[in-house]
């Protein structure tokens, strides 16, 4: 058991090292959400109400980018390059390997939330989160759910060249519809229903409660339930559809 943990820790440290050595990945992970935040901040400046909506939205999008998007990319890349197959031939336990990989994504998500919180506080005047415990609960739930979905989604992607197309075909519409429904009160019912059924909008709601409104976790259990359901769905297909081998 302790050896499994030690090896997971070593894998995690290797993943961190590789992450920082890949400047484009680091850029997309950290700078892009900040740019969104800055851009949104400029457009919405003057309306604290709108800025209060911006911060939880960007925080949730960052979680999706660092877990769902990054893991889908990573798993397809590692699979198609043959790294997964090589690792499978070694005594490294599967749990340790994916533990390290996931922990890497979780670290990025946590760093991003910290950046968004700080930027919101310092640049946009949104104040510190009102409910740290709720922030932690939704961060953990969102990270777990979107990580599992990212790994599961990687199984759908046939080769590395098409990863961007596949990932954006999901990421952009989900972000768009979730932001839109969260922001606007006059949305067609069907669009609202779609957004509420997807995992991102409940995550934004949870963050919104934690950051801005301070409504209790008990009021947001339905949002948490939807995230948990997607998480279970993601876990099932992440494990079931897993392939160590290149498809092309």
């Amino acid at each position, binding site marked *: 058991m302790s050896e499994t943990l030690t090896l997971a820790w070593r894998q995690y440290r*290797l993943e961190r090292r590789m992450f920082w050595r890949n400047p484009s990945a680091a850029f997309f992970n950290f700078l892009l959400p900040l740019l969104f935040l800055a851009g949104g901040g400029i457009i919405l400046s003057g309306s604290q109400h709108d800025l209060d909506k911006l911060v939880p939205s960007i925080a949730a999008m960052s979680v999706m980018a660092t877990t769902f998007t990054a893991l889908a990319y990573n798993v397809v890349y590692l699979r198609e390059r043959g790294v997964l197959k090589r690792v499978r031939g070694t005594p490294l336990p599967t749990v340790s390997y994916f533990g390290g990989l996931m922990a890497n994504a979780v670290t990025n998500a946590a760093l991003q939330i910290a950046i968004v919180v700080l930027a919101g506080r310092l640049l946009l005047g949104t104040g510190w989160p009102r409910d740290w415990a709720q922030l932690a609960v939704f961060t953990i739930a969102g990270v777990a759910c979107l990580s599992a979905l990212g790994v599961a989604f990687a199984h759908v992607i046939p080769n590395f060249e098409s990863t961007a197309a596949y990932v954006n075909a999901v990421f952009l519409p989900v972000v768009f519809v979730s932001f839109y429904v969260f922001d606007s009160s006059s949305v067609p019912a069907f669009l609202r229903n779609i957004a509420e059924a997807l995992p991102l909008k409940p995550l934004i709601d949870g963050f919104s409660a934690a950051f801005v409104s301070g409504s209790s976790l008990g009021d947001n259990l339905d949002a948490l339930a939807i995230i948990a359901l997607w998480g279970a769905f993601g876990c099932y297909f992440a494990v079931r559809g897993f392939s160590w081998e290149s498809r092309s």
Partner: protein
Amino acid sequence: MSASATAAIEARGLCKRYGAFEAVRSIDITVKRGEVFGLLGPNGAGKTTTVEILEGYRRRSDGEVCVLGEDPARRSRALRQRIGIVLQAGGIYGHITPREALRHWASFYPRPRDVEEVLALAGLASQADMRSRRLSGGQLRRLDFALALVGDPELIFLDEPTTGFDPQARRDAWETVRKLREGGKTILLTTHYLDEAQELADRVAIIKDGRILAIGPPRDLGAGSAHYRVSYRTAEGELVERQTDDPTALLHELTGEALARGERLEELAVRRPTLEELYLELTADG
């Protein structure tokens, strides 16, 4: 002690089916400890499928398999600590150096070899601190070797280890394999190069369409064939080669006829086929 207890690899009636396609059709192999065993055959013969079953990557459809005393399909960690695998195509992280990769890999094993020693053995000492993405194809292949060796495995699988190598790199790889053999390692290697099998393997199995067509030491394989080749040049200057299982009778017939015609059989020769001739004959289509 029975033969199976001392063998590194033992496969009996090994089969692998993909739907209606039979990739491996009842293969029997025994690889002794300390032996270099070559699986030789054209592309698509079933070499890689066979090796990947032995490595634990694929499940067999039928038959018995024992690798270092264990069933590889169970994928025990203990077994993977004792084997080293050089895949036909295995990727590596681009953003770490060979030294970092080897240190990381070494941590998976209970008694790893010294990283610097493995770097030297694989011929990567001067590239040890380069990012892997900047390594050439040949250097990456050496890294494949190094990663497979760092755990100090008893049994090493080499799947087409020198495909795409230039002649010097091939010689270097062969030298590495010989050193491993001298160190008492058991090696199962697949190749479609005859000279490689001849140079490295103690015993060779020629495989085609998922079946073993011939098995034995490379020197004896061609010689052990039933076919003798009798060749001579006719009075018209044409070189004739005939194959026979009974060279005595054929020679008697040929020389009798030649004497009756008052001709000489120039360049008359009787020989057994070489490994290359046997290979080409066995693996020819149709």
